[in-house]
C-alpha cells in the first residue's frame, strides 16, 4: 500500500507496518506465516453466536412493550440496515482480510482521526454490549434458580452478572482451550432449540394447534415507537462485524467472509422476526411487556408447558453467555488493532508469557465491563453499544465510497457490493439516522465517548498518519 502509515505518538511509538502477502490459507510476512484456521462454519458461529443472545432472549418483552406486535417490524428494520452494512463490510474485508475489522477499514479509508474515534468507540461499544449481555444473563440465571425452586428475586441479577463477568474475563486470560469448538456446539444447540420452538409457535400462531388468541392491533402505538424500538434492538445485530475482526484468520477469505457476514445476518434476522411474531401471537404484547427481560420464558411455557419454559431458560443462559464471552474476546482484538497503529500504547497488546493471551487488553475490557454491568441499565447499555457501532457502520459505508471513488492500486476486493453506490449510501444514511431515534441519555453518552476518543487522538497521537493511497 502506498501512503504507508507514519508518524509517532507521544511515547515515540510508530505504527507497525510490513509488506505482507495474503493467500487463501495464510498471511505471509517477511519472516513468518500466520495460519488461517477459521472455516465458514467457524465464521458463521462467531457471527451467530455473538448476535443470538440479545435479540431473541432479552428483547422481546422490552420491544413488545414499546411497539406492540409491530416490534417484528422493528427487528426487520434492524436486519435490513445490518444487511446494508454487511455488504460493504464484506467488500472491504475481502480487500483487506486483516485483523481489526471495521477499525482497519475506516483508518485506511478515512485517516487516523476517524480511525481513532472508531477504534476506541468500537472497543467501548463492545464493553457496553458485553455488560448488556451479562445483565441479560443475570436475569436468566435468576429465572433458572427459580425454576429449580430457589426463589432469589431480582436483587441477585446484578451480583450474578458481575460474578460471571469476572469469570469470563479470567477464563479468557488463562486461555479458553477449544472455546471455538464449544461455541460451535452452543450455536448448533441454540439453533435446534429455536427451530423446534418456532416451528411449534408458527403452527400455534396460525391457529392449527393450541388455543386461539385474541387478535391484537399490529401497531397500537403508531409508527414512531417502531423506529425507537428498532434503535433499541439494533444491538442484536452487532455480531456480524465481529466476523470482520477475525478476517486475518479466516481461510479463503474472498469467499468465506461475505458468506459468513451476510449469512449470519440473514439467519439471525429471520429467527428474530419469526420469534417476535410467535411471541406476540402466543401471549400478547401486554403480557410480554410485563414479563420484562425474560418474557421468552413465559412464551415457552405458554406454547410447550414447563418443558418449553425450561428449554428457553437453558437457551437464554447459553445464548447470553456465548454472546458475552465472544464480545470479551473481541475487545482484545479491537485494542490490539488500535495499539498496533500506535494510537494506544504498545503495552496494551502485550501477550502473557504463561498463557499466551493478551492479558492487558482483556483487563482493559474486564474492568469497565464490570463497572457498567453494576449499573444494570439494560436499555441504556444496549443503546450506547448500538450508537457506537452505528457510527462505525456508517463510516464503513463512507470509507467504501471514498476508496471506490479513486481506487488505489492495492484495492482489489474479491467481493464487490451489488447495487453500488446505492447500497452503501442507503446503509450509511440509515445507520446514522437510527441514532436519532435513541433515548437522549444514550445519545449523550455515545457522543461523549466519541468526543473523548477524538480528544485522546489529539493528545496522544496527533502526528500519526494512517491514510492509505487516497
Amino acid at each position: 500500500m502506498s501512503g504507508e502509515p507514519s508518524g509517532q505518538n507521544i511515547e515515540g511509538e510508530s505504527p507497525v507496518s510490513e509488506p505482507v502477502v495474503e493467500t487463501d490459507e495464510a498471511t505471509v510476512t517477511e519472516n513468518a506465516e500466520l495460519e488461517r484456521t477459521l472455516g465458514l462454519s467457524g465464521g458463521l458461529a462467531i457471527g451467530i453466536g455473538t448476535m443470538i443472545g440479545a435479540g431473541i432472549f432479552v428483547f422481546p418483552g422490552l420491544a413488545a412493550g414499546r411497539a406492540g406486535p409491530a416490534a417484528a417490524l422493528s427487528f426487520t428494520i434492524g436486519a435490513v440496515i445490518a444487511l446494508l452494512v454487511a455488504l460493504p463490510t464484506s467488500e472491504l474485508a475481502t480487500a483487506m482480510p486483516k485483523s481489526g475489522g471495521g477499525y482497519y477499514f475506516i483508518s485506511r479509508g478515512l485517516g487516523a482521526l476517524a480511525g481513532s474515534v472508531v477504534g476506541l468507540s468500537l472497543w467501548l461499544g463492545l464493553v457496553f454490549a458485553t455488560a448488556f449481555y451479562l445483565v441479560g444473563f443475570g436475569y436468566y440465571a435468576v429465572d433458572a434458580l427459580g425454576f429449580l425452586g430457589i426463589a432469589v428475586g431480582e436483587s441477585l441479577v446484578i451480583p450474578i452478572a458481575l460474578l460471571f463477568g469476572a469469570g469470563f474475563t479470567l477464563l479468557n486470560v488463562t486461555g479458553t482451550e477449544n472455546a471455538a469448538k464449544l461455541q460451535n456446539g452452543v450455536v448448533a444447540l441454540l439453533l435446534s432449540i429455536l427451530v423446534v420452538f418456532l416451528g411449534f409457535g408458527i403452527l400455534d400462531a396460525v391457529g392449527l394447534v393450541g388455543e386461539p388468541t385474541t387478535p391484537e392491533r399490529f401497531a397500537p402505538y403508531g409508527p414512531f415507537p417502531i423506529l425507537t424500538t428498532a434503535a433499541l434492538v439494533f444491538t442484536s445485530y452487532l455480531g456480524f462485524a465481529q466476523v470482520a475482526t477475525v478476517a486475518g484468520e479466516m481461510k479463503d477469505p474472498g469467499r468465506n467472509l461475505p458468506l459468513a457476514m451476510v449469512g449470519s445476518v440473514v439467519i439471525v434476522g429471520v429467527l428474530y422476526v419469526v420469534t417476535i411474531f410467535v411471541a406476540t401471537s402466543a401471549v400478547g404484547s401486554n403480557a410480554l411487556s410485563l414479563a420484562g427481560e425474560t418474557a421468552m420464558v413465559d412464551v415457552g411455557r405458554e406454547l410447550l408447558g414447563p418443558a418449553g419454559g425450561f428449554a428457553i431458560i437453558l437457551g437464554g443462559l447459553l445464548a447470553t453467555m456465548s454472546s458475552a464471552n465472544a464480545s470479551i474476546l473481541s475487545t482484545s482484538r479491537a485494542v490490539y488493532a488500535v495499539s498496533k497503529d500506535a494510537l494506544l500504547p504498545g503495552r496494551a497488546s502485550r501477550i502473557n508469557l504463561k498463557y499466551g493471551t493478551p492479558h492487558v487488553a482483556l483487563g482493559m475490557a474486564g474492568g469497565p465491563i464490570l463497572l457498567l454491568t453494576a449499573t444494570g441499565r439494560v436499555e441504556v447499555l444496549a443503546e450506547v453499544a448500538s450508537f457506537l457501532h452505528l457510527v462505525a457502520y456508517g463510516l464503513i459505508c463512507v470509507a467504501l465510497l471514498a476508496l471506490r471513488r479513486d481506487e488505489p492500486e492495492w484495492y482489489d476486493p474479491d467481493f464487490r457490493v451489488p447495487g453500488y453506490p446505492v447500497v452503501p449510501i442507503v446503509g450509511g444514511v440509515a445507520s446514522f439516522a437510527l441514532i436519532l431515534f435513541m433515548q437522549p441519555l444514550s445519545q449523550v453518552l455515545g457522543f461523549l465517548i466519541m468526543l473523548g476518543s477524538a480528544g485522546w487522538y489529539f493528545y496522544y497521537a496527533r502526528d500519526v498518519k494512517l491514510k492509505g493511497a487516497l
Partner: protein
Amino acid sequence: MTRVLMPLAVLEGESVAYGLMDLLGTMDVTVLGYHVLPEQTPADQAREQYEERAVSGLEDTTEEFRKAGGAADYRLVFTHDRQQTIERVADEIGTRAYAINGATGDVNRLLVPLSGNVAVDRVLQFVTELVGDRDIAITLFLASESDGADGLLQRSAQRLRDDGIDVTTERVVSDRPFETLIEAVPNHDAVVVGEAAPSLSQFLLGDESERLAAASVGPVLVVRRETKEDGAEE
C-alpha cells in the same frame, strides 16, 4: 534429495534430538518452526512479540541440519492449529515425509510397521533413501488380526535386501495391532510409518502416528499419503 519436514515448537525450547538430526543427514530438511496460540490471541499479535526470538532459534537449528548433511531451510508459522499448519506446509513444499521429534541417541535400528492401510511402496522407497549406504538395520513389522499377509512382508524385505539393507521381519497375529506395535518399539531407535488413511478410529482416538510417537518416546518419521500433485506427476 528427498525433503523432510521437521516441525518444531520453536518457542517452547524444543530442540531436535542429536540422533534424529544425524538420521536425517541423507535428506533435505525444512524446519517448520511453529507456535500454537490460544484462540483469543491473533496470530499477528504473537508474531510481533516473538518473531525475533523464534527466527534466531530456527537459524541455529537449520545450521545444525546443514552440518549434518542435506540442504536445510526453515519456515516460521504462528497458528491456532498445529496439524493444519504441518499439512499445508508439507503440501506447499511437496515433502515426502514429516518427522515427529523424540529422544534418541545414535540410530542403529529402525522399526518399519507395514500394518494397516498404508502405501507400502512409498514407505519402502523412503526407507531406502533414508538409510542410503549407512549401516542402519531395519525391522519390518506386520501385525494383523488374520493370517495371510506374509507375502507382502517377504516381498518387502526382499526389496530392501536388494538395495543392500540389513532386514529382519517380525510377524504377529493379534487382535490389537496397535498395542502389539508399541510392544515392538524397544530395541529400536526410531520408527518410520506410512500415514494411515483417515478413519473413524483416527477421529476418535487421535492420529495413529502421534499416538505411536507418544507411546514410543523416540522419533517417528511419517511418510505421507499420496497427494494429488504426486498423482499428476506419475
